[in-house]
């Protein structure tokens, strides 16, 4: 076999890529576990999935919500495993950042150093040669390498597809699942066939990468594990025993990093949340925070049925209010404001003609639906109460007591969520009291819920009873910016 003399940067990037790719695969499976069903249509209508990765069946005779549908996978296949979506998201997004930076560096160096000749086919004859190579492989023999090149023709084509098509495909279909991108560029989601089609394609891309890795490893074994690993570690073929040892040591090192990531995520999730969340949040704020929702889905796109996430309050007080059409309910807006106020449902309705918006709802679990929401823009209410200087955040307190109302939830206490005050100025940031042309149903948050279309669904608090304008949220709950942030370790800012 000829010596390939892989440059140092390429060898380093190869192993860094192995680390990020495996982290992405495992954390991706964790994210899939939280709603282990794949659809083609935006409405994620129950029963229309084309694939499911769960043994659970939901009851037909009582209300269930999407938390009941979550699966708990083993840490062997998911990072960290055991139904830890918050941790899975942190690892997935930090790995995405690392993988994209690695990829950009890789592309730049590939073209700057002329190494792109290695992978990009620029001669039509390569395809006929590749066909001959396939026939040779089917004869259980090894085809010849391309003249002066380190690969045979079919390998060159395969690497070109993976590096220049499959990897960008995964990044682009991943981006199509960001609520902020979907809200600002609805055409981009349509380009992929919709939110759920993008999620399905993203998952199929994951499968394609798994298939590539399997074939890649088989090929290395067939062509010569010691020689090829010597080339990918030392840059040239030398002491093959050292090469085997070094390759196993590198793989063991990567495996150890996986074990460490898994253990620390399961034992000290708050540490992981703070450490990884700081990096991911910074990237989100720079790239996605400036995006504002501009969605206007046609009426025909509105989903017939929306999944339920979170069970309604079952307190006597709430039930009594519901029975009386919420006439006794009040929205209290206070804290750092000039004029603390209380609004009845009628007061809110009289603030002006309801603003309506037909938009795509993105649950953090991965399912989606399109709904028409009507209500009063949040900024209208804030203009009335007048936030004081120093006001930076809005804390939405709800009537849901998760310990009492949501047995599937990982924690207890009153549900609340915090958002940046600046988000209230976003168009389509709504306090919704109507849904699909009628009063907001109880299971979707009656009498009032938040709609904040650039964020993931859990930020849009339901069954709201008060809004506190605050300068700091570190003393609220566990201080992470919301009940889910406190208990399930999500980030506070979730444009993706």
């Amino acid at each position: 076999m000829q010596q390939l003399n892989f440059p140092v940067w390429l060898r380093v990037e190869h192993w860094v890529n192995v680390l990020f790719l495996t982290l992405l695969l495992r954390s991706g499976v964790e994210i899939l576990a939280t709603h282990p069903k794949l659809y083609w249509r935006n409405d994620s209508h129950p029963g229309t999935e084309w694939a499911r990765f769960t043994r659970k069946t939901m009851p037909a005779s009582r209300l269930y919500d999407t938390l009941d549908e979550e699966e708990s996978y083993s840490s062997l296949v998911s990072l960290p495993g055991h139904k830890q979506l918050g941790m899975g998201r942190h690892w997935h997004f930090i790995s995405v950042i690392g993988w994209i930076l690695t990829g950009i560096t890789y592309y730049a160096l590939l073209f700057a150093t002329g190494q792109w000749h290695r992978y990009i086919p620029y001669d039509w004859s390569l395809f006929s040669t590749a066909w001959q190579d396939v026939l040779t492989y089917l004869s259980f023999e090894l085809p010849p390498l391309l003249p002066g090149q380190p690969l045979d023709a079919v390998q060159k084509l395969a690497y070109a597809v993976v590096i220049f098509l499959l990897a960008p495909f995964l990044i682009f279909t991943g981006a199509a699942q960001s609520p902020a991108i979907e809200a600002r560029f609805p055409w981009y989601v349509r380009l992929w066939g919709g939110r759920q089609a993008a999620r399905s394609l993203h998952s199929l891309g994951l499968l394609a990468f798994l298939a590539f890795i399997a074939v890649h490893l088989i090929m290395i074994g067939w062509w010569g594990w010691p020689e090829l690993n010597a080339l990918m570690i030392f840059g040239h073929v030398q002491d093959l025993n050292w090469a085997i040892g070094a390759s196993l040591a590198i793989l063991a090192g990567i495996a150890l990093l996986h074990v460490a990531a898994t253990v620390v995520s399961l034992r000290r999730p708050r540490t992981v949340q703070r450490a990884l969340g700081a990096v991911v949040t910074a990237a989100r704020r720079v790239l996605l925070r400036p995006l504002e929702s501009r969605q206007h889905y046609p009426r025909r796109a509105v989903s017939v049925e929306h999944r339920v996430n979170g069970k309604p309050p079952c307190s006597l007080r709430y039930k009594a209010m519901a029975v009386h059409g919420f006439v006794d309910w009040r929205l209290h807006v206070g804290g750092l404001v000039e004029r603390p106020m209380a609004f009845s449902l009628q007061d809110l309705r009289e603030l002006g003609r309801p603003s309506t918006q037909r938009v795509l709802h993105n649950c953090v679990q991965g399912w989606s639906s399109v709904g028409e929401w009507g209500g009063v823009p949040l900024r209208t209410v804030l203009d009335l109460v007048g936030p004081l200087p120093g006001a930076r955040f809005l804390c939405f307190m709800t009537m849901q007591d998760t310990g009492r109302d949501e047995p599937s939830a990982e924690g207890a206490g009153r549900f609340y969520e915090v958002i940046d005050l600046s988000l209230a100025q976003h168009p389509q940031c709504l306090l919704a009291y109507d849904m699909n042309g009628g009063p907001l149903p109880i299971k979707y948050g009656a009498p009032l819920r938040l709609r904040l279309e650039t964020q993931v669904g859990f930020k849009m608090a339901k069954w709201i009873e008060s809004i506190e304008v605050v300068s700091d949220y570190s003393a609220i709950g566990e201080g992470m910016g919301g009940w889910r942030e406190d208990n399930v370790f999500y980030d506070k800012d979730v444009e993706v």
Partner: protein
Amino acid sequence: MSRPGIARLISLYRYFAFNVPALITAVSLALLLGIAAVHLWLLSAGYSLPAYFRAYLALLAAGALLAAVGIGARWVTGAREGSGVSRRGGHMAWALGSLASLASIGMYLASRTLGLPGLDVLTGRWDYPLGTFSMILAGLFVALHFSVLTGLNVAAPDRRGWRD
């Protein structure tokens, strides 16, 4: 490994279920037609083959074609209850396809290892792309049939009755 461990491992397949019957059925038809085409081509390629082997090739191609016709007919006509190919007929077509596939794999492996009467020249000749290709097609069909039998997949005209 303990028995519960083995049971857990075997039951892993229950975590996977797909609802793409048209795709599964179309792929199965493509695989069967591919198997039939390979064997018909061998029959017509002008090789000097023993009569029993020619009969085997013809029988195998006919079996694969018959299975494809049965699966296709069940797909087209079976959706209407009480007419066309019955569910049992569909099952028999799939079984015939698997039988043909397993026979083709078995005969290919036997011809390369044990040797067949009048075809000693084939012994050890693994460097035959069409043969490997045919084995891949047959292996895929058997795997697909297995996935349908275990409930991992469904074949048209059946659909999942998922409601949740």
